[in-house]
């Protein structure tokens, strides 16, 4: 470990860290916003639910490097444009969260739904005030997986020149120098742990009714 190097490059490392944070968090936010309506559609699609979920799940198997390289061609963007990375990661988040949202809505007890119907809830207010709140724990679980996997996948984007903590790995490799690699790993793990804890905390705040050990 060369601490002098860390000290000298701390501005650059901090910049990479912030970029890493945005590149992994923004797709999760966009993905969640898209997954809510899509997951609801899949949830309501009856016999199509299984096939649709399998199809969406397939998106996750596209290699990330392939996506980073191909997307500029589809989107008409520059190869170095971070938009490519954001779109690619959003696709992965969708692949995860559409299923999660659909599962979350499916986890609402039948008798709760029937009680809501019998009381005269209209479909939209039932969805917003009964089904979605009850689906929060499941959705938050999926969100945590999506965040952590994004933080890991995004580092691959260093290979196509999008700068974030992954750039420390390529740099270390080129310079035959271990310090940036260790710094990159430590900071990625710390970022993942922090975001994971944040989502967990928010989800608990939002669901005070959940039973959990005191």
């Amino acid at each position, binding site marked *: 470990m060369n601490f002098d190097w860390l000290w000298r490059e701390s501005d650059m490392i901090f910049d990479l860290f912030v970029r890493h944070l945005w590149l992994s968090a923004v797709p999760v936010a966009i993905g969640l916003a898209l997954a809510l309506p899509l997951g609801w559609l899949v949830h309501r699609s009856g016999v199509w639910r299984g096939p649709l979920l399998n199809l969406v799940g397939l998106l996750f198997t596209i290699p990330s490097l392939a996506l980073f390289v191909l997307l500029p061609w589809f989107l008409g963007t520059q190869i170095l444009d971070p938009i490519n990375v954001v779109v690619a990661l959003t696709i992965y988040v969708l692949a995860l969260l559409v299923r999660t949202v659909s599962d979350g809505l499916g986890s609402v*007890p039948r*008798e*709760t739904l*029937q*009680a*809501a*119907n*019998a*009381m*005269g*809830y*209209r479909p939209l207010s039932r969805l917003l005030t*009964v089904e979605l*709140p*009850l689906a929060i724990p499941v959705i938050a679980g999926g969100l945590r997986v999506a965040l952590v996997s994004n933080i890991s996948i995004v580092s691959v984007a260093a290979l196509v020149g999008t700068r974030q903590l992954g750039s420390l790995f390529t740099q270390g490799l080129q310079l035959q120098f271990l310090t940036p690699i260790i710094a990159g790993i430590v900071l990625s793990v710390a970022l993942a742990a922090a975001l994971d804890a944040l989502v967990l905390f928010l989800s608990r705040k939002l*669901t005070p*009714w959940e*039973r959990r050990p005191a």
Partner: protein
Amino acid sequence: MIEFQGVTKLYDGAPAVRNLDLVAPTGKLTVLVGPSGCGKTTSLRMVNRLVTPSSGTITLDGEPTDRMNVAQLRRRIGYVIQHAGLFPHRTVAQNVATTARLAGIDRKTARRKSLDLLEQVGLSASLAERYPWQLSGGQQQRVGVARALASDPKFMLMDEPFSAVDPIVRGQLQDEFLRLQREIGKTIIMVTHDIDEALKLGDQVAVMREGGELAQVATPRELLVRPADGFVADFVGRDRGYRHLGFAPIDNGLKLASEPVVQLGASPAEAAEAAIDGWVLVCDAAHRPLGWTDIARLRGPVREDDLNLSSTLAPMDGSMRELLDAALSSPSGRGVVTNTDGTLRGTIALGDLGGILAPLHRTGAERHS
């Protein structure tokens, strides 16, 4: 008034409810009772259109339900189900306020209403901020009833509301609900498969049979005394002769023997002096009966351990069924009758009951012919 006119529900061509004609009168509790699968729940759920009838019409106060907006129709009808169906993510108070909020009542008023109702159904205010999973089954059921009442609906549908709790709690809930219904006078249809519950709660009981047909609609007493056919007679039960006594009040002029009593701590000699046929009744200082004591077994002054607690007490404002039970359950063969304040009024020997029951039997027989 809720009225079914020729209502039929077919599932895959098989009738779950067949040509049902039934009127649930305003302010009365109508019970639908029958064996499992006979179409009770289906009938109930057609009223608020959770199930759509295949044919026929259901009206609320003369207005056909199929022309109403379905959400508005449901908001006019309180609905209570077996496991309460409370919202797991809302506190008890919020759960109760739900129907009031849907009826357009503002948050503050709805909350006040919900706290009032909790008290009315016998729940302590300390439960208001709990979540449903922190309540017992009986408490949840009470919350379910309070929630149905919070929008102050004219009509209520209740599907086996008291069947998911143990018999003792069920009895309490039934008694409390009867008391509440006397105050609020809702037009209620309640479903149960428990004939005892039907007879206890119903102003009117509709017995359904397999295949969704109505077998008989009558008052509980009439059902016991004059079942329409073998199915109803069977369903009402083999001890219906005994049970219809539950609807006959004890005659105010009932002749009772005065019973000599002792208190706890009485010596064996005192007990023997008061005893008739070897048994003496022990009362507390306020003259309330505690139990019988067998003087042959006394080994000293009368202690609590010497009391035989098997006998039931018949309150003077109770039924002939309670009177007969008091006599049958008494080890001395003498049934203990109390005043309404619980103090001893007197006893009646089992042998003397025959003469009192005979006229009741005759009225039953006359109605039958």
